[in-house]
């Protein structure tokens, strides 16, 4: 890569999409796919493309995120120069405005000093919940060769009106230059170019944008900056056609996890040569299947001990499934414990949930039953 590139990841945007799961954590540290957290995708995409200076902007409940990323060593980001930096909210005693950011642009304004002092020529920005495995190197070289000021990754998605309302839709000319970004459209459906909220920008351009936004109190990157400057600046799209999911609701979250049980999805997200999705290594022993257990169409992480039956489910690390217990269509987070003769269907159990003997719980695919972190459920 000829140009030097820094990374920025937004960890708290969209927390309100799945408030149950983000009550105790950032969107970035929401568990996904048996052993990952959302941020693993953004981090891995950057690291796999040779970006080694990664800044993560946070604003609240970021303990679980800090715990997950640690020094960054699992992504080879524990470095003397560059590496992983967590940027918690910064406010001085004298600052008048101590309100925390709510949008991408406000988040950038809150770290304008960091951006100004970056020595890299380009900046890659990514939301933490863009679940994809994207070749950023290719995106960066297209960005450079096209001479664009800013390039946005888009994916063609077939949308319902409801889903479209949660997205930013991009309209482009025949040269893939952006004409307009429609944020949260009211009445659009069908095949659309959807922003996957990953972009490459010249550092100077980003710096200028952030200063303008600070002066004029802009809050939206798409409507206040991009749409106003489409005729002056060159904004392009990069077409990504791999696996992409973004989670806009609890049902979405459930379906998105379950889609990984499909081999083609699993391969498209995790099986790309040279672009592994990296995550924190926990010291769990391999999963153990006891005689009499039955497991079908499921993903099981290390550290699990299974004595009962597991069907169409995703078990995170260290889950215990007791004797005579049936787990169907469930997502069980790290260290969930189920006793004997438990029956679970369409349940999402958060970390450390304990379900004792003989309990029966069922949700529905469209309304999965969520149990909050650490809850103990007893038969009586």
């Amino acid at each position: 890569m000829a140009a030097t590139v820094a990374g920025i990841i937004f960890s708290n945007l969209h927390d309100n999409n799945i408030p149950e799961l983000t009550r105790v954590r950032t969107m970035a540290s929401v568990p996904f796919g048996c052993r990952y957290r959302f941020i693993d995708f953004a981090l891995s995409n950057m690291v796999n493309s040779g970006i080694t200076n990664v800044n993560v902007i946070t604003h609240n409940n970021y303990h679980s995120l800090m715990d997950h990323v640690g020094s960054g060593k699992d992504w080879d980001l524990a470095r003397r120069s560059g590496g992983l930096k967590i940027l918690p909210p910064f406010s001085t005693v004298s600052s008048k405005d101590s309100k925390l950011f709510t949008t991408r642009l406000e988040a950038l304004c809150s770290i304008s000093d960091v951006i100004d002092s970056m020595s890299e020529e380009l900046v890659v920005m990514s939301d933490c919940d863009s679940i994809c495995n994207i070749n950023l190197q290719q995106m960066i070289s297209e960005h450079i060769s096209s001479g664009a000021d800013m390039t946005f990754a888009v994916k063609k998605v077939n949308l319902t009106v409801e889903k479209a309302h949660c997205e930013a839709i991009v309209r482009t000319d025949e040269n893939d230059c952006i004409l307009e970004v429609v944020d949260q459209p009211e009445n659009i459906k069908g095949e659309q170019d959807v922003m996957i909220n990953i972009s490459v920008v010249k550092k100077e351009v980003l710096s200028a944008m952030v200063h303008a936004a600070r002066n004029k109190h802009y809050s939206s990157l798409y409507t206040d900056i991009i749409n106003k400057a489409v005729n002056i600046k060159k904004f392009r799209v990069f077409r990504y056609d791999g696996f992409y999911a973004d989670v806009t609701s609890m049902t979405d979250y459930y379906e998105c996890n379950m889609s990984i049980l499909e081999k083609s999805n699993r391969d498209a997200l995790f099986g790309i040569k040279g672009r592994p999705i990296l995550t924190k290594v926990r010291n769990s022993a391999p999963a153990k299947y006891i005689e009499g257990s039955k497991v079908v169409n499921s993903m099981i992480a290390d550290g699990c001990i299974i004595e009962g039956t597991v069907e169409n489910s995703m078990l995170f690390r260290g889950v215990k499934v007791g004797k005579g217990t049936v787990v169907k269509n469930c997502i069980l987070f790290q260290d969930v414990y189920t006793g004997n003769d438990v029956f679970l269907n369409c349940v999402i159990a958060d970390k450390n949930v304990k379900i004792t003997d003989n309990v029966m719980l069922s949700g529905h695919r469209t309304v999965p039953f969520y149990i909050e972190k650490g809850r103990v459920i007893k038969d009586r």
Partner: protein
Amino acid sequence: MYEKKECVAMLLAGGQGSRLYTLTENTAKPAVPFGGKYRIIDFPLSNCINSGIDTVGVLTQYQPLELNEYIGNGQPWDLDRNIGGVMVLPPYQGYNGADWYKGTANAIYQNLNFIDRYDPDYVLVLSGDHIYKMNYDEMLDFHKKKNADCTIAVLNVTLEEASRFGIMNTDSDGKIYQFEEKPKQPKSTKASMGIYIFDYKKLRQYLIEDENTPGSSNDFGKNIIPAMLEKEERLFAYPFKGYWKDVGTIDSLWEANMDLLGSEPKFNLHDKERRVYFRTPARTAEYIGNEATVSNSMVTEGCEVYGSVINSVLFSGVYVAPGAVVRDSVIMSDTVIEKDAKVEYSIIDREVTVEEGACVGQPKDEGAGIAVVGMGLTVKKGKKIPGGLMVNAKTLEKLK
């Protein structure tokens, strides 16, 4: 400037492990994979850090590349330290010429300069071919309490087994008065586990004396311990209760893997006390398919199982195709068992392909023994590897 350390561990990891045949053809025994995601050396290294010992010298000699790479900077075991940490110590060329490590004692002797840097009171000598969890700190307490010059960890074995081990004959206080290597008529059942704590001053003195003794084989069991006994030093046997296995043979390696299975395993890797650390990159959780059967087995992340896996240990990234059967076997990382292939009572090394319909090994109760397939080989379609046979690239070619 080096900080003083109370106890420095020296891990003997240079042996060839020739009784593991093709498994150690290209790698040192301590780097042989074990238990789904570990290497044998993870056990002593994890024991060290779990016992508060943060300075470990690893003495390598035979095929060290993979072992060196695996240990790296010691980060997985929290042994990447500014002062101390893990240090790989290969034989080296000195002012007066160069020497391979002639024996276990000579290996330590050649690295007295390493130990001297930390000015330790005690030196713990370990070997890199045992599977166990042990708190060396408790053993050190015992050593101090007995005011011993050398403490040797012992395991109580049966009388029949005793003639395969080095046996310590002790008085009622645990003081060793006699050491017998593989005695025909054992007087005691206290078998040496190859784990020693020495008073460093004494050890230093005996190593130097031994080096100057012509004809010595420079070995702890054969020379150092007998010499110390002869001079009536205080040697004590520290009784260890718990799981311990020397995995120096194909049979014992297979058994140790099987000892991990079941809801009440002989050796439990799932307890959160005294964890065992390893260097394995994160992989996607394993997928168990619609038609799969997995029973009494261990399966590691990165696996995809569509066939049957019974009484077996699968390492990470193993693929078991539909219709394939794996029984009573140990399958190491990234091996592919294709459609309708059969693996019985075998150990298959890393990155092997067992092609469609091929057979490796024979059912355990037929008594033919364990079949072993070396790293990176392809067992061609329809081919049969009989039980008890160990194949590497050369022998596989000759096989009809």
